[in-house]
C-alpha cells in the first residue's frame, strides 16, 4: 500500500462534540473537512423514553457527519483524535468509516489530479 494513497474518513459524532473534535484534529495537523448536519440511529435503536407508562422511541437523533480526505498514513491519527475528543462512553458516541478514494482533483488548480495505482 503506497503511503500516499488517499482515504476518506466519515465520522458520525454527537453535534455538541464538533468543536472539540475540530480542535483535536487541527492539533493533529488535519485541517480540511466538510461538515454536514445529519440525523441517525445506531444499532442500539435510538433512545427510548418512558412516558406515562407508554413507551416512545426517539430514533434518528441529530448528529454531525465530518468528512475528510487524507493520506493513508494519517488515518490512525485522525481516528485517535476523533475518538479522544468525541467519546463520552455512552451509547450514541458515533462511528468512523474509512473509504478508499480513487481520485481527488482540486477545483481551483488545473492539473492537480491525484490518482493512485
Amino acid at each position, binding site marked *: 500500500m503506497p503511503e500516499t494513497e488517499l482515504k476518506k474518513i466519515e465520522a458520525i459524532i454527537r453535534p*455538541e462534540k464538533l468543536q472539540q473534535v475540530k480542535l483535536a484534529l487541527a492539533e493533529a495537523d488535519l485541517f480540511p473537512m466538510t461538515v454536514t448536519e445529519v440525523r441517525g440511529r445506531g444499532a442500539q435503536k435510538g*433512545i427510548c*423514553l*418512558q412516558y406515562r407508562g407508554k413507551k416512545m422511541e*426517539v430514533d434518528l*437523533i*441529530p448528529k454531525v457527519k465530518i468528512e475528510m480526505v487524507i493520506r493513508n498514513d494519517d488515518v490512525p491519527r485522525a481516528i485517535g483524535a476523533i475518538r479522544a475528543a468525541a467519546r463520552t462512553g455512552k451509547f450514541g458516541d458515533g462511528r468512523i468509516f474509512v473509504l478508499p478514494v480513487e481520485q481527488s482533483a482540486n477545483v481551483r488548480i488545473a492539473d492537480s489530479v491525484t490518482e493512485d495505482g
Partner: protein
Amino acid sequence: MVLDSGDTAFILICTALVMLMTPGVGLFYGGLVRRKNLISMFALSFVAFAVVSIQWVLFGYSLAFGPDIGGVIGGLDHAMLAGVGFDGDGIPDLLFMAFQMVFAAVTLAIITSAVAERIKLSSFIVFGFLWTTLVYDPLAHWIWGGGWASALGILDFAGGIVVHISAGWGALALALVIGKRAGFGQYGMEPHNIPMTLLGGALLWFGWFGFNAGSALAADGIAANALVVTNTAAAAGALAWMGASWINGKPSSIGMISGAIAGLGAITPAAGFVDPASAVIIGVVSGLICYYALLWRLSRNLDESLDAWAIHGVGGLWGTLALGIFAVAGIGGVAGVITGSPAQFGLQLIGAAAALGYAFAVTWICAKAVDLTLGLRVSEDEEYVGLDISQHGESINA
C-alpha cells in the same frame, strides 16, 4: 369617576402590546437555545401566559389589588372578578385588571430563562401557579396594591421591582435548585437562531412602550415622557453593551439586543420620574453592569441559562436605585439624590432589598417544594434528545 375614551383606548391598546411581549420573550429565548429545545422555549411562554391568565381572574388580581390586609397581601373581595366592572376612574376597572394581568404573565415568562432546556412541563405549570400566587401577587400588592412599600413611599413606575427584580432574582434561585444543563461548561451551547432572538427583541422593545407609557394609566404628558425615556434608555443600553462587547472582541448582535433589554428593564421603575438626559445615563450604566453581571455569571459557572438574572434582575435593581438618584419633582412629583432629596434613595434601597430577598427566598422554597414532590427536571435521556420531542412530541423539520 367618569371614563375617558382616549385613556381607555390607550390602555386597551397598551394591554394588547404588553400581551405581545410574552410571545416576544418566547422568541427571544427560543433563538438562544439549541435547536432541539426551540419549540419548548417558545411554548413555555404561551403556557405561562395561559396559566397566569386563569390564575389572575380566579384570585390573583384580588390578592394583589384587593383591600389591604396588614400591608402584605390583598383580600379575596375581588376573587372571580367580583365587583370589577365596566366603571372606573378614567378607565374601566376591568381594563385595569387586564392591564395588570399581562404584566403578571410576562413576569412568569421571563423566569423560564432559568430552566431552559431541562424543565418538565407539568412541573413548570405547578410551579408557575405557585410562584405567581406566592411571589408576584404579594410584591404587586406591596408596591401597587396599597401594601407596606407604597405606604412608605417606595416607588416603582412600571415594574422594576414587581416584574424585573422578582423575575430576575427568582430565576437565579430557580436555576440553583434545578441545576446545570448536562454538559454546561464542557462544550459550547451556542444560540442557534439569532434572527429569531432579534425578532423577539423587536417585539419586546415595541411592547415595552405599552408597558411603560401605559403605566401612566392615561394618555397624557407622563405617558409621553415615559415613552421617550423608555426609548432613550433602550438605545443607550444597546450601544453601551455593544461597545463593551466590542472592546472584548466583536460587537455581537445578541449583545446589542441584550443591552436594549437591559436599558428597558432599568428604565421601567423610573419611567414616570426621570427626564430623557437621565435616561441616557440609566441606559448606559444598565448596559454595562448587566454585561458584566453576565460575564460574572459565566465565570462562576452558574447556569441561569438565558440571563434573566443578569439582565432583568440586575437591570431592575439598578433602575430602582436610579429612580432614587435621578428623580425630578417636575415630572413625577418626587425628587431624588441629585435634586437634593437623598431620602428617596434610601426608600428605594429598602424596597429593592426587601423585594430581592423575598423573591429569591420564596422562589427557592417553591422550587424546592415542586422538585421534591414532582421533580422539576426531565430525565437525562429526555434532556439529551431535547424538550421539543420529549415534552411536546414535536420537532422542527421532522
